[in-house]
């Protein structure tokens, strides 16, 4: 393992990422919904049916959070589950490739999809919704939402290691869609009944959305450090859980 040079390492990581990209983009069942749903939902509910630029701006951010969570959960969850079931994971582990390449590739693809989703949303927001933000706000928003995919990557990994390729999409949808709604990603959280607003605090998606909304000053006013802390804790917990599952897999 120590014989690989940095250049080799880099090449391997790039190769793995590229093949992962090719794989996913060739599965329309993954690529299309992940990209189109946030765009479509936002265009319908945020721009065409919502009135006023305030809605368009708020919902651009919340659908942005909705958008980036999708590839993280599905890319990791379904990806790992099917790799495992098809034996690809085992194959990759016996290859002389460092295992990090496998994860880096998955994260990289998740980020690529996220960037595409966010760019699409931004185009709709600017062209159809009349949303105007400062350059700094755009960049900060992008940064928060991209980094914010990490806890969901960890969740996806955990689910992927505990389910098979048939059950993973169902499990993820059961988690993803209610969580998106209850976290106020589809309709603003303050429109929800008070009891649901309280429940929202449990979900990591709520905290990601609040962090992102703080860029446009529309968060609910809780301390931002709290949102960051909760997202970090979720990441830690699911990484640990995934680590345990990973070790069991390896020891088998």
């Amino acid at each position: 393992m120590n014989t690989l040079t940095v250049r080799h390492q880099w090449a391997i990581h790039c190769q793995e990422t590229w093949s992962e990209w090719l794989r996913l983009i060739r599965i329309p069942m993954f690529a299309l919904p992940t990209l189109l749903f946030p765009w479509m939902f936002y265009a319908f509910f945020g721009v065409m049916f919502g009135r006023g630029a305030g809605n368009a701006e708020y919902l651009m951010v919340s659908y942005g959070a909705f958008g980036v969570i999708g590839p993280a959960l599905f890319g990791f969850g379904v990806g790992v589950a099917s790799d495992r079931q098809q034996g690809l994971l085992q194959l990759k582990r016996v290859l002389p490739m460092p295992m990090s390449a496998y994860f880096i590739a998955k994260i990289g693809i998740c980020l690529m999809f996220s960037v595409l989703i966010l760019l699409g949303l931004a185009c709709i927001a600017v062209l159809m919704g009349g949303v105007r933000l400062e350059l700094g706000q755009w960049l900060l928003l992008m940064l928060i939402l991209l980094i914010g995919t990490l806890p969901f990557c960890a969740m996806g990994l955990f689910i992927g290691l505990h389910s098979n390729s048939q059950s993973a999409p169902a499990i993820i949808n059961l988690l993803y869609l209610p969580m998106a709604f209850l976290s106020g990603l589809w309709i603003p959280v303050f429109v929800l009944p008070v009891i649901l607003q309280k429940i929202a605090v449990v979900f990591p998606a709520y905290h990601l959305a609040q962090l992102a909304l703080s860029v446009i000053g529309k968060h609910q006013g809780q301390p931002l450090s709290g949102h960051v802390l909760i997202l970090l804790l979720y990441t830690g917990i699911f990484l640990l859980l995934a680590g345990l599952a990973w070790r069991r897999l390896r020891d088998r």
Partner: protein
Amino acid sequence: MSYEKKSRGLAVTPILLVLLIAALVGAIYFMLNSAPSANDGAVTTTSDQLPDNSFSINAVRVFDGQQVLENQTVLVRDGLIAAVGQALEIPADLQSIDGAGKTLLPGLIDSHVHLFGTARQDALRFGVTTAIDLFSDQSKLSDYRASREQLGQQNVADIYSAGSLITAPGGHGTQFGIPIPTLSNAADADAFVAARQAEGSDFIKVVYENGSEYDGSIATLDRATLQAVLAAARQRGLLSIVHVSTLEFAKHALQAGADGLAHVFSDLTADQELLDLARQHNAFVIATLAVQASVAGQSQIDRWLALPAVDQQLSQVQRNSLSSAFPNAYPDVIDTALRSVASLHAAGVRILAGSDAPNPGTAHGIGLHQELWWLTRAGLSPQQALRAATADVADVFGLSDRGRIAAGLRADMVLVEGNPLNDIDATVNIAGVWKNGYRIVRTNQLAAPVQTAAAEKYAANLLADFESNDIGDSQSGWQVTTDQMLGGQSEAVLEKRVEELSGNNAGDNANGYLHVSGQIRSGSMFPWAGAITFVAPEPMAPVDASDIKVLRFRARGQPGDYQLMVFSGGQDNTMPALQQITLGSDWQTHEIDLNKVGGVELKRLKAFAWVAGSGHSEFVFDLDEVELQ
């Protein structure tokens, strides 16, 4: 990898996991408590402060709708009465109100009104938290229902309504110039009642009146149709209330199965046959003595106008309504009516208190207090009269969430000075009115301008830089104002914020500001939502501010047009002067020359409000450094 290392890793991981999960639960709990409270229309302040709809009243005499209880504590939590008792432990975080020497009554219920104009506000100012409307515009029925089912802040009385009434073509009720459907024969009765039910009528009001009592002749439902209507109502589970003026027609109505009479008849005194009928059918009678007195030309308005507590609270509309009279007086009416109510009451027939406001000689709100006094003149004790305006009405109309002071009920309450159980006139000495647990702001309607000596006070008050924690202070601070006071559904939330993410142009050292966010919803003719601040320490009290010329403030917001509302003038219901302000996403200082805003009366300046209006849906704006010069 050695086994040793692996086993240590395996041992440590679960512990770490448990720690992380514990931290997560802790963090979520923390965030939950730091979440801004989301009570409808409530002023959001700091996280540890309870909303205004939780408080206690201590050492107070309670009339609970039926009984009198001395030296009680009443706990209100989130708009509901949580407990009533003698030795209650009062949670330390609860704001407490001293009730010594005062009497707490259930929010009063007027059993006979006709809604019009500002009726719902006027009623509430006089402690009438619910009114039974016996004919008005049926298009509002669903609004009434929504309003009375919610527990948020509102400054209007709740309404149960008959909607349109059931009368013959050309009959009583058709003379007001509003086209209403009419019923001409018994065969159509069921369909007609069904139509009222479909419109959302909570009960039906039937007119059975030929005008004979008032030297006239008007078309009326015939007896067969009356019977058919009441049968249909019974079958459909609707309570029926019949308007009659004569003893004979009252008997017909009761025989046909009317649940109650909208007035006591006034041609003849109740005879034994009628008393038997009423008892047998367990019918109720809404006495409406105040309006009968007015018909008799004996409304005795000066009695009430002489009470300062009444005089101060009468709006011009109420004053006009009180002082007007019916064109012809029928002097015998009131004595007959009083005698009938006395014998009905003695016979055990349930009497309800209803004012029939805004008929001449009555007015919304005060009318029920007039009626309570008249009921005592008919021989009811003050306690019996008060029951007729609280628990008895709730029982008759099946209002299970109101009409009493008891745990679990809506905190609709009136606190009065003294003891109305000894002296019924004490009901007008109102110390506080709560609707859904929120205290109603009762403005002195006659308020003279505060003298200039107080000028420094208001200047200091209004000058707000949002550095100190003062926005939720209900006395002098900032409050939410929305179209909910006119039946709209817009919302706003105020929040003191400190500049944090964007470092650019935060102002010198001053970085606290007022953050106003909300939602404009359709449902009101003039939708608005935003923040209001009063010039005087007391809300909406006028201040002589003729030495002031300029209002200056810094603001930014979601770019667009907003309104500055300037409230001034002697009357409560004066429309505010409006000044359009355009906000951008950066802070900008605005200077408003108050002399140039049309309709501002600086001698009686009351309040400023910054609001978003009909062009908005969801909106956000920030205010800072508000000052008068």
